């Protein structure tokens, strides 16, 4: 499913804060860039949480945004899951209730089975009845991912989903996310500024710097000039 975006946020004085244009066809895309490059803003615009000054977003044959035609599909109708760096779990609900929150058009039994499947997929079935505030950082990430995937979105936006996790948890969650690619269930846009984290991902990359796209293409090819930086990080 092709994702085409051409979006801009302009400051009041006319200066561009974000001016990004790309067309992506792969199942996984990494948005790579330093802190403050506009990666999170870009994801928020794709999700429908931030309105750009102008632009157009096309996901497959659906137009999600076209400011020229005054079209802006509301966030809840874009079929997009969004997991932020700090997973915002509903604190008054259990892990199971959090995952079930966005599921519609299923009867109770089907919903429960689907929630259990999502929890199992992220290795979190034992956490089902835990109240959200009692979960650890890694557990919260797993539940947030399960919740975002439960309504079967067309697009999953991940904003530094592994930040703050220990290596084992990060590797385990990434492996589970990558298995989504194998099954081809959902298109993933993955934001990171950590070269070591994304280096081995079979993805295309959009490099963002100071709000502008500087390169688009296969990840290892585009980021090859940064290899020395990666090696330094790994040392």
């Amino acid at each position: 499913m092709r994702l085409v975006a051409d979006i801009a946020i302009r400051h009041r004085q006319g200066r561009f804060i974000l001016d990004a244009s790309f067309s992506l066809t792969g199942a996984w895309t990494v948005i790579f860039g330093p802190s403050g490059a506009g990666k999170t803003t870009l994801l928020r615009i794709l999700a429908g949480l931030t309105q750009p000054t102008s632009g157009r977003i096309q996901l497959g044959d659906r137009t999600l945004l076209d400011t020229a035609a005054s079209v802006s599909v509301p966030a809840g109708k874009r079929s997009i899951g969004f997991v932020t760096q700090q997973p915002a779990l509903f604190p008054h609900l259990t892990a199971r209730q959090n995952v079930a929150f966005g599921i519609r058009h299923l009867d109770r039994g089907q919903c429960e089975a689907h929630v259990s499947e999502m929890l199992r997929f992220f290795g979190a079935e034992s956490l089902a009845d835990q109240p959200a505030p009692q979960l650890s950082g890694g557990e919260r990430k797993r539940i947030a991912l399960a919740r975002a995937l439960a309504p079967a979105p067309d697009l999953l936006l991940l904003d530094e989903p592994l930040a703050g996790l220990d290596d084992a948890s990060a590797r385990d969650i990434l492996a589970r996310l990558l298995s989504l690619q194998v099954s081809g269930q959902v298109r993933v846009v993955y934001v990171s500024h950590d070269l070591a984290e994304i280096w081995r991902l079979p993805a295309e990359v959009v490099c963002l710097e100071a709000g502008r796209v500087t390169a688009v293409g296969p990840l290892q090819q585009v980021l090859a000039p940064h290899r020395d930086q990666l090696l330094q990080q790994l040392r």
Partner: protein
Amino acid sequence: MDLQALGLTLRLAATTTVVLFALGIPLAYWLASTRTRVRPLVEAITTLPILLPPTVLGFYLLILLGPRTAFGRVTAHLLGHPLAFSFSGLVVGSVLYSLPFAVQPLAAGFRSVDTALLEQARLLGAGRFRTLTSVLLPLSTHSVVAAAALCFTHTVGEFGVVLMIGGDIPGATRTLSIAIYDQVQEFSYAAANRTSLVLIGVAVLALALLYAHRSTEDASRG
């Protein structure tokens, strides 16, 4: 002890609290979420009864609900009796008078909910009603309890508005605070003392319930 006045006061306070929740929750939600420029004006109008002398509010309501205005004549025609000097009229006056005590705590509670949670609710397809009932209200229980306690006790203790709109009709508009006024006028200080103690008891009970709920919430948060 005027049991008839006690019963009427409790009925008035309960009815007013229910009506205030029905009106106050949507209004507080709107105030907490809107970015429109008229919000400060609407907030000022809903807060006005706190500053306005109750007799001023009561006077204008008496005029509005009476036969001199079209509104008064229409409601009298619909209800079969004028709103002024009736229990229904007292409810209208009490709702307006206690409106800020419902709206202010509720709006403050809604505003304190993390916007990231509201954004997740939106992304997961929740509309405004579901966001209100499934996220905002459960995460603002202390504000809901505070609003209920304040509305109830404020209505139980009101005097000026009730006297202006309802007068002093036993069984219809005579509330406890008016009964105290009558008892003092008749030099029945012992009776006035007993009635006053009931009002103090209601206020203390409401505040105790409010703080007990806050303690329970604090304990559950660890």
